[in-house]
């Protein structure tokens, strides 16, 4: 398990100690769970858990939402624009 690569994909930063511990924990967890491989699933087809049927929404006149309620949570803003750090 490439814990560095995982950390990058999940955008998480860990220190060396955390990396070691987490790697061990996850490996132990997977070791314990690997027994699911022995279950025969050849008769199973993927389907959703929801019992709802296909549902479409009619394209009527748009509805306006008060954007202030969302903008109030922007950590940094310039007027209504969300301000984020630069891409390096």
């Amino acid at each position, binding site marked *: 398990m490439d814990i560095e690569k995982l950390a990058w*994909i999940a955008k998480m930063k860990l220190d060396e100690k955390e990396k070691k511990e987490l790697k061990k924990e996850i490996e132990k967890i997977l070791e314990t769970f690997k027994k699911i491989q022995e279950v025969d699933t050849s008769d199973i087809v993927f389907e959703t858990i929801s019992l709802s049927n296909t549902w*479409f929404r*009619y394209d009527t006149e748009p509805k306006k939402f008060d*954007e202030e309620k*969302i903008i109030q949570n922007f950590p940094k803003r310039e007027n209504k*624009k969300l301000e984020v750090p630069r891409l390096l």
Partner: protein
Amino acid sequence: MKAKIGFEIHVQLNTKQKLFCRCSADYTDKDPNTNICPICTGQPGSKPMPPNLEAIKNVIKVGLILGCKPNHVRIYFLRKHYFYPDLPKNYQITSEPLMVDGNFFGVKIREVHLEEDPGRYDLRNGYVDFNRSGTPLAEIVTEPDIESPEHAKGWLEKLFLYLKYSRAIRADPGSIRVDVNVSIEGGERVEIKNVNSIDGVYRSLKYEILRQTRMLIVGKRIKRETRHYDDEKRITAPLREKEDIADYRYIPDPDLIPIEISESLIDNIKRDILSPIEYEKILKNKYNLKENYIQKLLQNPEFLELCIYVLKNIKKEDPNRVAEILTNHVWRVIKDTNLEFHQIKNLQLVRNIERLLTILNRVDRNKLCDIVSAMLLNSEDPVNYAKKKRYLLQEVDKNKIISIVKEILTSETKAVNDYLNGKKKALSYLVGKVMSRLEIKPNPKTITEIIKEEIYRTYR
């Protein structure tokens, strides 16, 4: 050198609402972050609403135009995970293929599917605007059947003309995004991401094929990579390596129910589609329009729709006369004043053109545009307006013309005799002489008639 070129084309669909929420899909000309809601900004606890039916229909339309078949299994929505500031949930909801196995002018279409657009990230200043986030996109994936940059350009132009006709996509220019895949013999496939114009596709291909050819010549290996196109420098350049490794970890989106496309839905949509070829046939065979009128009409789908309405509903007129007014004068007014098609009252236009045609012969040609302008913008009746403005030659200048004709006939005795002896050319000569004396040039037929009348009266 023969190339293998394929595309992934993103087009914005023509809907009122966004794909999974009720915000407006028209995000242009709005202050940043004023066209948003909890769903399209990925707020904690928000979930997508059922997908916009019009978006589904539009994707199907696009697929049908491209000759695709519907995918008749349960179609799931997937989550495509990657981090980017303009992607609020840091995953994009994208569907499995809705339409598959098509062919458009010789290029095979692998599939067409539905996805949501991210917002806009201003890289230079570090600003994000979510107005566009969540608007519906169709993605068209082709097989690598395009063979050259020229082929690519022509094919894309045709594609966009046909898509315009379907009304399935938004009419805005510059709202296309193409990922270009190109490989040449002996080389791996290179992807050029996010080219925003047909010209850009053409130029990036020209550069890239040259670049790849050069590499092969010096014995270098073309590796599989993703590049981006710099329109200013007209080159392609490699993307940073970290962005190259993309593991999107696709999982079916548990918040959404899979779609099933029924036959009746397809039939309903099929009935709505007309391609340019079919319109051309109608204009030629049903209305006998001249070629130049047909080409002018086919340029703009909304104008075409308006003109067909007029042709269908106008009483007993020569379609070519009608087309002349429409393509010459009506079109000019629309262009010059940026008149919107939905502002034109179709039936009133039909009646007005009928009225206009009754005085067409008596009207100063130069003043036609003004009359048409008044018709369209101020709802003026063309006959009353022309009378009011003294554009009707008969009323205003008939006496003047008669006196000039008398003068000419007196001085051009040779021509008059020639005419009386059967030389038709002499009549044209006399008409020309009268015309040159007039500032406002009426319909030559009018002059002809007046001259004939005078000659008959005088030389009876």
